[in-house]
């Protein structure tokens, strides 16, 4: 069972609709996302993602994609902000 699935099971009343994406932030150093459709823009200062509904912009310094496959994305670097776009 995945980490998110176990949270969903334990806190099922919090989840009315299945979220379009899931994200876990590890301090300011990394963010892990699921259900990412595509990368819209990528540079070492900003990563723009396309999600099922809307998009996400991760801003920071020295950003790089630690792993990207099957809708899972891990972005590492100094993360300054995460915005919905």
């Amino acid at each position, binding site marked *: 069972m995945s980490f998110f699935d176990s949270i969903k099971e334990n806190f099922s009343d919090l989840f009315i609709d299945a979220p379009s994406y899931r994200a876990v932030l*590890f301090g300011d150093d990394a963010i892990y996302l699921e259900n990412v459709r595509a990368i*819209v823009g990528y*540079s070492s200062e900003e990563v723009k993602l396309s999600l099922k509904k809307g998009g996400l912009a991760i801003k920071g310094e020295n950003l*790089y*994609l*630690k792993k*990207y*496959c099957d809708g899972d994305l*891990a972005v590492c670097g100094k993360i300054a902000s995460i915005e919905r776009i």
Partner: protein
Amino acid sequence: MWKDCVDRKNLGVVYAVYYLSGVNLDRFVNHLVSRGVALFNVRKKGNKRLSFCVNLKENKKFFAIINKLWYNNKNLSLEDGQSVALEGGYQLKRLRTSGKLSFLYYLAKNVGLIIGGVIFVAVSTLASDLVFSVDFSGDGNANRARVQEYLTERGVVKYTRFSDLDLNALADGILADDSSLSFVSCSKRGNRLKIYLQSAKTPPTILDESVRQLVSNIDGVIEQIKVYRGSAVVKVGDVVKNGDLLVDGFVTAGETQLEVNVLAKVVIVCEREFEFVHQSNDAEQLAIAYAEQELGETEVVSTEVEKTSFENDTKYIVKLRYRRLLSAG
């Protein structure tokens, strides 16, 4: 799956590192990922350059996708250091193979190197156990011929194995075999058998300091006298007889007489007669030879031969004058 990001153990997998240059690099990345190729450590270097890693297990799938999308279906495969130009203005280069187990990948691609390395180690190990030469050193080197003979008898020759030799026992054997040696050591230096030989030195003669007088044991005339300690009683030219005192064990220091041990050397010229009878009248040399043989090993000063008739033969009287050295100390 999210654990893969932080689980460093997964980095033990072998990766191929690629470098991509061109425009629309995000599109390239998205195309690959949407077709199931996982990318790792995607780093952008400027607007038109990107580096990323692909699991070596997915390398075939990676190139299959690239062939189809950007290389007109030709068979494409890159080795470390190779690059290729793709459609759409992309330039792809394979930089290296990385990962903790990447050395195994390298070894698998160079099996001949592994086999050669194994053979080299095996031959080196075997060869280092063989004796290629025997080197001698030390001041007992003069005995090397005898020691070499000893070694040959015991089967210690070229190409003998060191592991078959007990070097300590060998050194003991060489020492026991040659009494002129005082110390022997055997050691291994690479493929050389090093043998150190130390010769035995003759201890010096201890002087006899108990002689108080030098007395003559023969009749004769003093030819030479040297006194190092004691007092001479005779001088050169004196006639002495058996039992006469030659050097006494005392010295005079002022008005005092001190007893000392005698240290002196006296040369006495002696005379001896020999008689021989021979039927020939012309056998002087023969008589002299017989006389010298009878006298033994000593220095002959002069020879006189006198002939007389004896019945029907000739009698030879040979007088030999010779030196006798007497010493004390």
